[in-house]
């Protein structure tokens, strides 16, 4: 099939050759309806987080012990003004989910941004300079990977105390390794390409070559990988919350809501189920959207 197919494809591809690659990619992403829909879902979640005070029907921290574990509206004992019911302190679960989006998305985005920045720098250095720099960075990566993630995170949180920044640091600790590996691999390939050779021959500095010549050309796989990792980070944060290392009250990440609510699962399933569904939806949407991005922008994944 292949040689035969290639002939056909080669012909077909020339048809689109004039269209700019970017536009074609964007086009093919937009054509992927599932991915587009997911991207819209992610956007809605982000908007929800930004405009939480306008959307949330109640103050997420407002406790009312007489509404303790009040069921969702459609169940006996529920009220329509508390659509998804109340948690153990009588706080409106819907409002807490809306505000919780801020924490979960912020953590996801912050971790991925910091980790990607560190990863890009380390990966560029390792891939460009090679030699001892590469060996050193590879060793560090080995040591970090050899350290079980959750144990390190727990240790770190024990050391520095709980808190948003510390959670982000604990999550960054291992996340940067992934963009680092991607960038290193890409850099190793890219640095041998003609235009980079040319730049080097013209006497461009290492910094210039890395940031101006190599980086722009390897950015797209890195961004794609990073969006996928963001979904992963949101789940990991939930795991930390499960182990009691989540953000401080009264704000709650979704993970913390699921984790705290799990004690009531036999009596009040809604306390942990709705935030769990929120995580699932957002993470799923990010995954689908980023996979669409990958399919569209990374030629190696074209199938």
């Amino acid at each position, binding site marked *: 099939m*292949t040689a035969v197919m290639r002939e056909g494809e080669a012909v077909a591809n020339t048809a689109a050759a004039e269209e700019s690659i970017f536009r074609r990619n964007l086009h093919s992403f937009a054509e992927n309806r599932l991915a587009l829909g997911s991207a819209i879902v992610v956007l809605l979640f982000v908007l929800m987080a930004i405009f939480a005070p306008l959307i949330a029907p109640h103050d997420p921290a407002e406790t009312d012990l007489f509404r303790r574990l009040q069921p969702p509206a459609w169940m006996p004992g529920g009220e329509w003004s508390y659509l998804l019911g109340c948690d153990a302190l009588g706080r409106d679960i819907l409002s807490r989910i809306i505000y919780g989006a801020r924490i979960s998305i912020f953590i996801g985005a912050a971790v991925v941004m910091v980790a990607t920045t560190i990863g890009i720098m380390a990966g560029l250095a390792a891939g460009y300079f090679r030699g001892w720099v590469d060996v050193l960075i590879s060793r560090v990566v*080995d040591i970090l990977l050899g*350290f079980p993630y*959750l*144990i390190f995170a727990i*240790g770190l949180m024990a*050391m520095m105390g709980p808190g948003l920044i510390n959670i982000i640091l604990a999550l960054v600790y291992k996340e940067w390794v992934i963009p680092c590996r991607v960038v290193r691999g890409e850099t190793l390939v890219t640095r041998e390409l003609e235009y980079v050779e040319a730049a080097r021959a013209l006497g461009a500095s290492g910094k210039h070559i890395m940031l101006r010549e190599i980086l722009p050309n390897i950015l797209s796989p890195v961004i794609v990988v990073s969006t996928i990792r963001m*979904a992963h980070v949101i*789940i990991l944060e939930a795991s930390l919350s499960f182990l009691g290392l989540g953000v401080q009250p009264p704000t709650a990440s979704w993970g913390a809501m699921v984790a705290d609510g799990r004690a009531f699962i036999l009596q009040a399933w809604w306390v942990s189920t709705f935030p769990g569904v929120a995580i699932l939806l957002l993470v799923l949407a990010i995954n689908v959207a980023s996979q669409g991005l990958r399919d569209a922008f990374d030629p190696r994944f074209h199938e």
Partner: protein
Amino acid sequence: MSLARFIERLLQLIPVLLGVSAIVFVMITLTPGDPVEIMIGDQIVTPEQEEALRRDLGLDRPMLERFGLFLGNAVQGDFGESFYHRRPVAEVIAERLPATIELSLVALLVALFTAIPLGVLAAIKKNSIFDRMATVGSLLGVSLPGFWFGILLLMLFAVHLQILPVSGRIGFSSEIEPITHFLLIDTLLRGRPDAFLDALSHIILPAITLGLPMTAILMRVTRTSMLEVLRQDYITFAEAKGLSRHRILWRHALKNALIPTVSVAAIETGSLLGGNMIVETVFGWPGLGRLVVESIFVRNYPLVQAAVLFYAVTYVLLNFIADILYTVLNPRVKL
């Protein structure tokens, strides 16, 4: 595998272990909380008694000296005594290890045996309903917070349907004299199929919960690499040879498609081993992960140090296994 390569691998272990030990020690030094304080709890002691306890645990010595002592002893296989259990750490870890390894391996098997066929089928029937469902399934698999999924499974199968036990590793009517300490194996070796099924019924939910994200990842890897392989010339050539579809898929394509799957599986096994404290807690599984987390909270330093070292060794070992498997599957690569 050449001897030189083997030695190189061993040498690689040294900086990893040293680095990991050093990180643990630095963290212990900087972490507030005093094991003696925790041990005494809500009781009255005189400062002298407290000091005596601290001395008994070896906590009165300076940090660097303790680090040196730990390294020196660890090299000889002595990891010290668990503060909490008052027994050698190696012994305490060894007791918990089989449960953790068994759970991880079963999770791995569950993942492999579902991910590979599903991934292959999804690739063959690309863009079919099946492919789409498998893709959605795998996305769900990586999108579910593990502990939440575990609790949901528990609610469904153990509480509502009551067809699987809530927690533990095996029931109490199944007394099995240990041989390998892996219950699924021991029950069979002892000729106790009833106990085997009992153990299986205990492990199934935690193994699925633990293995789910890995299943999802492996399925995607298998599907992608299978698609890649199916585009290769040698598949066309095999077709031109008039081979049966079965042989082309399962012999020609799969053997090549499995190379990335197996590498990813070997690496991910490390995260199974290091990441199962949550599943162990949800399902009351008596494994190492839970013990280590509890140990951190009570500042049981010797146990934490030894366990982290163990995980690091496992990590290097798994990489090593991944390398070997890579060679076995891929004759082009010589180690």
